[in-house]
């Protein structure tokens, strides 16, 4: 069973819509309030990255089911400038926007699974999963 929905990120307010949608889905899936906040915050960071660096992109939401667990899968993708140095963006405190956004290391800590794919000039895709405890 896969439920898929998406929010396009083009303007600032879309960041709020994206995290509200994530929180609602997380709530329906049975996540506790702390994990709901973690998921919503992670989405907020990912959506802001799209807004700041790519200007246009999308967040996809998917319910994933395995044998004995369920979770939410968030995919943030854009066709923006991409990331030159993948190692560096995963360092805490690294930012090219002057301190906006705690960035990807924070998102990684908030979620259970994290994957970053990027190609300079082509775009970036971040996949993050959180399992219901």
């Amino acid at each position, binding site marked *: 069973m896969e439920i898929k929905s998406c929010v396009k990120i083009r303007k*600032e*307010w879309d*960041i*709020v819509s994206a*995290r*509200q949608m994530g*929180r609602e889905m997380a709530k329906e899936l049975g996540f506790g*309030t*702390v994990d*709901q*906040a*973690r998921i*919503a*915050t992670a989405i*907020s*960071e990912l959506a*802001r990255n799209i807004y700041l660096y790519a200007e246009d992109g999308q967040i996809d939401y998917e319910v994933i089911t395995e044998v004995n667990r369920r979770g939410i899968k968030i995919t943030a993708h854009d066709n923006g400038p991409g990331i030159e140095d993948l190692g560096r963006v995963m360092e*805490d*405190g690294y930012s090219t926007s002057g*301190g*906006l*956004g*705690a*960035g990807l*290391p*924070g998102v990684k*800590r*908030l979620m259970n699974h994290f994957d970053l794919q990027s190609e300079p000039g082509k775009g970036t895709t971040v996949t993050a999963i959180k399992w219901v405890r």
Partner: protein
Amino acid sequence: MRIPILKLHNYLLVSIQVDLDDQTAIRFQEDLLDKIHKSGATGVVIDLTSVDIIDSFIAKVLGDVVTMSDLMGAKVVLTGIQPAVAMTLIDLGVHMQNVPTALNLEQGLIKLRQELEE
């Protein structure tokens, strides 16, 4: 959207009850500094009881407004940060050190009074 800022004697009271978008957060920062300037308030309580998400951007705006107000001569206390929000901020790597906080509005006012030694 604008966040209402109430004046009570020498204090300003703010209760944030909406999901803050970036624009509203920035406008709030400006409004608060302006109100401090016009009212001559010496203390500010920003109550976050109803806020269920603080991402790195909002944390930065809040942290900055504390420092900015301090530069102007007004003390700010953040109150009522929810457990889920506190945990999320630490996961994010946002530690908000040097930001005065209190459990609730009441404790916040007590803290302000102590800091301002009234």
